[in-house]
């Protein structure tokens, strides 16, 4: 599945780092990592959207996004390109969306071969909802 995040919200993209696990925390919290002196919480994006556990052991990528309380990282399988898409291709999330909770998706972009699901970052990062 392909997801899109607004580029301006992303602080950086960095490969998988050494992480310290946090016992007793939600399983979505993979751990804490040291990002140039700042302690950043890393969330497992697969678990967040309720997807099955991955089968390969390829290294994950960190997508570090800015929030008002500091940077938070989302662990994803792969990073793609930065796309500039015309806003007239934007549509609200379809009713038949499966596999991802609708509250996390702001809408979709129709690309040539597939749909790009645009993430709504606030609900994605808010685990208590």
């Amino acid at each position, binding site marked *: 599945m392909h997801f899109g995040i607004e580029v301006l919200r992303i602080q950086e993209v960095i490969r998988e780092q050494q992480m*310290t696990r946090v016992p007793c925390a939600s399983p979505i919290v993979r751990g804490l990592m*040291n990002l140039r002196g700042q*302690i950043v919480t890393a*969330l497992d994006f697969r678990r967040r959207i309720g997807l099955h556990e991955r089968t390969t052991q390829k290294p994950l990528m960190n997508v570090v996004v800015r*929030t008002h309380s500091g940077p938070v990282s989302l662990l994803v399988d792969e990073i793609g390109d930065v796309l500039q898409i015309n806003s007239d291709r934007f549509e609200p999330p379809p009713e038949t969306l499966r596999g991802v909770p609708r509250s996390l998706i702001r809408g979709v972009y129709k690309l040539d071969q597939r749909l790009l699901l645009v993430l709504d970052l606030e609900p994605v990062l808010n685990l208590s909802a």
Partner: protein
Amino acid sequence: MGELDDIVKEFLVESYENLDQLDRDLVAIEDSPNDRELLSSVFRTIHTIKGTCGFLGFPILEHVTHVGESLLSKLRDGELQLDGPIANGLLAMVDAVRTILATIEFNGTEGDDHYESLIATLDQLRTASNAPVAAVAVAANAPNRSGGIEEQILESMEDISSLVEDLKQNPRPSKKLTRRTSAPSRRAQKSGSTKGGPASRPDHVSMPAPESSPNEQTFAGKASASGAAGVTTDSAQEATAIGEFAATRASAQQGLPIAGSVASAAEPQAESGEKSQGLSESTVRLDVSLLDRLMNLVGELVLTRNQILQFSQSSPDSGLADAAQRLNLITTELQEGVLKTRMQPIRNAWSKLPRVVRDLAQSCAKKVTVEMEGADTELDKTILEAIKDPLTHIVRNSVDHGIETPDVRIACGKAAEGTLRLRAFHEGGQVNIEIADDGGGINLDRVRAKGIEQGLITPEQAAAMCDRDVMQLILLPGFSTAAKVTSVSGRGVGMDVVKTNVEKIGGALDISSVAGEGTTLRIRIPLTLAIVPGLIVTCGGDRYCIPQVSLLELVRLDSEGTHGRIETMHSVPVYRLRSQLLPLIYLDEELGLRPRRTDAERREAEIVNIVVLQAENRQFGLVVDRISDTQEIVVKPLGQHLKDLTIFAGSTIMGDGTVSLILDVAGIARQGHVLGTDGGRTMQEATNGKNDTVATKQEYLIVDPGDGSRAAICLSTVARLEEIRPETVERCGNQVVTQYRDKIMPLISLDGGFGGTCTEVGTISVVVYRGDQHDYGFMVGKILDIIDHAICDPDSVLGSQQIMGGQVTRIIDLSRLICA
């Protein structure tokens, strides 16, 4: 806030400080009403505020402060004596000024309230005369000062005449003003001196001040008001000078010195000028956010220094080692210095308390003085902010509930005035704050009764509770013994909030009280939050930090030590450390890294590392895999996703760059059930000495074993009660058994024998006990009753005799009978 001028902002900051000083001074003056120093100081402060707000264009503020200033001027001159109503009026003025300043801060304007009633009250207080005695005493001083007075009067007269010229040239709204202005100047010129005044106009001497002064005073009011309205600042000040002069004329006619007003009008300018120069040389006003940034940077520096130290230790380069060492020293000093910038004396948190106590004592019709010891003790600014509210609440409690009314106190043989003593001192790396009152103490019986009434404890618990634990009831939410709810207290919301706030900054709260003599509350808080020494431990392959402030000692047990030394009580492991039973928490179990061990596993561990910790006065041992060294760690708060985890207090970056979690000692204690969250029985209490525990309520089955005595069996061990027919009892070898639920169940008679024959006819009562492998049936003569009984330590009373239900009863351990 809008765009406030920098000038206005400065005015607000300074005025707030001045108002705080005013609060303190006014409360102090009440105790010594004739202290001229204090009176002058108060007058000068209000005068300063009034002057500035006139300049900045805040007419309401100016009017309020002016009326207050006039009242203060009379006090300062001795025309009025400070009493309760006047003090209340002045304090009300201070509050009004504060409110107006807050409105200015948030809206940019003064708001709509003109405070007419306050102004009227102050006016009324001012025009009432109540100090003939003071007048006489003060009059005696008059002759000494008249020499300088004449010069001062001449100067003022010159000012007045120049102002008169000024006013004459500029068109004035009312001609009457001009005439009135010249009137006093003519009179002044005629008299030429104070002494001349009364002498030349004997008829005025007998005139009581109140009647003449209103005219002068209203004139003064009008003069300064119109002065402020249209004329330039200079003229306004001179018009005010006229006002003051006119006021002094009125007082002169009473034979009182005018040195007060005129001379000291000149003084404040000179004095405050000098004073401000002295202060501005030695202090710097700083934005707190700047200091916070500095602290953060120093924190980062500490982390990096840790890293460099680690590298230098593993590198053979001696040059690196030297530089790293220097860096170490410099960073430590820098850290200490920056920490000091954020330290403030606790006096800042205490300064508001005298006023709070005064107002509260007045409304409760009690007399209370406040004593402060160790006001210079320094605390981090954030901690200071956090304890301000708890302190206020505790103080209010003491005045409202603790200290008795004067008549009750006298009846008890105490002084009519109660004392509230505040004490602060450093001890053991922590700041201790004590709030002690010499009131009636906490009535433990009332607390017990209220606890039962509010359903927080049962009557049995209450009866067996020790005094110290009864006092802890006060800290529960909703608890209050106040007979009625006042606006001050009684709603029972306070003490638990105090406790939470204190714990939030890593502190602890302790209460002790002696009935009839008083109550003392003690708060202990860490010196600083940001950079703390911590012990590094390893558990489950990861490193964790434990703040050293909670650390008591380290214990290492090898297999000889563990065998038999780790016991189990109510399925909780404990370790006997010297004479104390220490409950143990296994960190890997609490973190969910492995399932709970069995008792056998615990007893037979090869090596056990125990970190003895203290949380809220309770001690416990934390079992970890490995103990490393102590390091200075920079505490970084947990992010939003983790802040609800109570077992972690934060995280830090270690010397090698990895992240480690910092354990929250109280949080772990609570999760491991060493600390109770609701005041109920906790493991710690169960392992303490018998005198010191909350008794547990147990249900006991009371039976007659067959010989008429009474025996008790813990009901939790009983599976069923059965009645069996004697015919079903069979012998098998030397055992007596019966068929029970398709299985063979051995029957045991309660006097211990398997082979005892039962002599009952009819049915036999059997108490079925579920053992490890099968059920056992205990034959009893009769089943009597089931009662609740409070027992401190159920395991220890097995086999002993207790009084239960009013009769001597033997408590039986069924499991022991089986093994026999």
